[in-house]
């Protein structure tokens, strides 16, 4: 599964019915290879969030096909029975704000996902610690989220998105609250992690300063995507 990343073909989403129906996605095509980080850019109301919610198995697309690795997960209907398990095991999320659980320390914020999947606590914490080391925040493992800086919180959030080794990570404006130095650091980390764990990462962004770092960019406008080669500026 991991070898093929994520492929989206003709994905459509219609809100409402009859005269009031709105086509938020009119046939989206995307493909992101393992280890690749692509940008998804578009103005407000273009359908970015709808696409992200469809990819995240949070809302039901109206039509189209989505393939995760070798597994077709949607083909004019969900092919997976347990969408909750799909989100937990095969899709990583990184949000605009870190949204860490405030009453769990850093290591348990990251280890929570494997614990939810039934991994024993000690093993889950070891996975989490490995990622914290990779993201250079292992020294904050026992800290509470409120004790972290914005950059540290975002790195912990990335660790949480990666902890179950999902084939795809959906990052929704992950650099929005950060200054340009920290924003670039986050993009560098996402690229490193994508390569290291062979994860396909889709970064939804408005952030002008990070757009030049993508090698490939998908523009979305009026519910339709079109691909563009990015500058792929060195990080």
């Amino acid at each position, binding site marked *: 599964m991991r070898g093929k990343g994520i492929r989206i073909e003709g994905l459509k989403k219609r809100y409402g019915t009859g005269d009031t129906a709105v086509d938020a996605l009119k046939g989206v095509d995307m493909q992101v290879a393992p280890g690749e980080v692509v940008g998804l850019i578009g103005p407000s109301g273009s359908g970015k969030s709808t696409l992200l919610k469809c990819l995240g198995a949070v809302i039901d697309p109206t039509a189209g096909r989505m393939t995760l690795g070798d597994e077709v997960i949607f083909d004019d209907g969900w092919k997976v029975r347990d969408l909750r398990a799909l989100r937990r095991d095969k899709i990583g999320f990184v949000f605009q704000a870190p949204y860490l659980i405030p009453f769990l320390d850093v290591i348990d914020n990251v280890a929570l996902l494997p614990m939810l999947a039934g991994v024993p606590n000690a093993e889950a914490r070891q996975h989490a610690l490995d990622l914290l080391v990779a993201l250079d925040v292992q020294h904050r493992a026992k800290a*509470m989220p409120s004790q972290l800086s914005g950059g540290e919180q975002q790195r912990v959030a990335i660790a949480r998105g990666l902890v179950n080794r999902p084939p795809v990570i959906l990052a929704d404006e992950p650099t929005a609250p950060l200054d340009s130095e920290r924003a670039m650091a986050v993009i560098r980390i996402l690229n490193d992690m994508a390569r290291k764990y062979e994860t396909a990462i889709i970064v939804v962004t408005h952030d002008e300063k990070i757009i030049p770092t993508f090698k490939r960019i998908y523009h979305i406008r009026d519910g339709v995507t079109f691909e563009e080669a990015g500058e792929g500026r060195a990080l």
Partner: protein
Amino acid sequence: MISLAGRDILHSWGKFVFTGIGLGLLIGVTLVMAGVYRGMVDDGKALLDNSGADLWVVQKDTLGPYAESSSLNDDIYRGVLAMPGVLRAANVTYLTMQVRKGGHDVRAMVVGIAPGKIGITPGWPPYLVAGRQMTRGHYEAVADIATGFALGERIQIRRNTFTVVGLTRRMVSSSGDPMIFIALKDAQEAQFLKDNDAIWQSRRRTEANPAFNRPSVPGLLDAVIASQSSNAFVNAVLVTLEPGHAADEVAESIRRWKRLTVYTRAQMEDILVGKLIASSAKQIAMFLVILAFVSAAIVAFIIYTLTMDKIREIAVLKLIGTRNRTIAAMILQQALALGVIGFVVGKITATYAAPLFPKYVLLVPADSIAGFVAVLLICVLSSIIAIRMALKVDPAEAIGG
């Protein structure tokens, strides 16, 4: 799997502990209210136990002597004593009044007891904690220790002064007033005796009445005045039975042949619990229901607020694959934890506060267990709103747009 509820409680322990203390005080009041009811029932039973009687003979068709007034001639006991199965019969009077000592007074039930012996004659205090029983025919008293009187102190009942010669304990009326035992004759006088002006007015009225003041019948006026100046009535006759005789049978026999109302111990207990303190019990029950609703509202509000504060985190938890039952369990466990904290605080509060109440508060372990179960049940019900709200949270809320 880690306990999300436990971690959240540890993270915001101040909020939980202070809310728990507030809830605990409410639960404490609830337990004390239940204790007040138990105390009333126990006071009633203590009254019956301490009287040492198997039967209560009272004025016909009354619920006397505790729930209604009852008046019997003080020679009726002789006829009762002659009934088969009756071992002893003794007159008794009860008068609830303010008993004065020096500059202050104490509410007490003054009990007039017939001459006899401790442990034998019904109506006598069955034991003393200090001093001695009454040995003189007049002006001695045995007081319950709750009156605050000490041995040798002089107390005033109506126009007469009595010396406290003995102290007893847990001798109370059905409403919890401590008892003071005096001689029957003194008690009859206390029930009847009026002030000098009233006596003088009464004599004048009698003298002015031509039916009583008849020159042709010498001595009539004096006889009438003499009868008006004494009290030959008691409130009840306490009866103990000979071994081997059933209370119901002897009671029926006295009812039939003496045309009086007789109550057995079980009937008297029904009167005390079912009639005398029934309205108080209903009042307390209403308070308990209101307190239960207030407790439920507080727990529901706190749990709802705590859940509202975590809406975004709950959306994230759902998005990353947390099961609904895990989230529901987190909220439920928090509500139960709040209930447990509240109950512990409430139980401690009730235990330490109960002795400070002026009337007897009896905290029964069974009530505590029932209260604990009720608190947990209230917490479960109160968390339903918050759980429903949490389960309705759309995981898409975690994603912007």
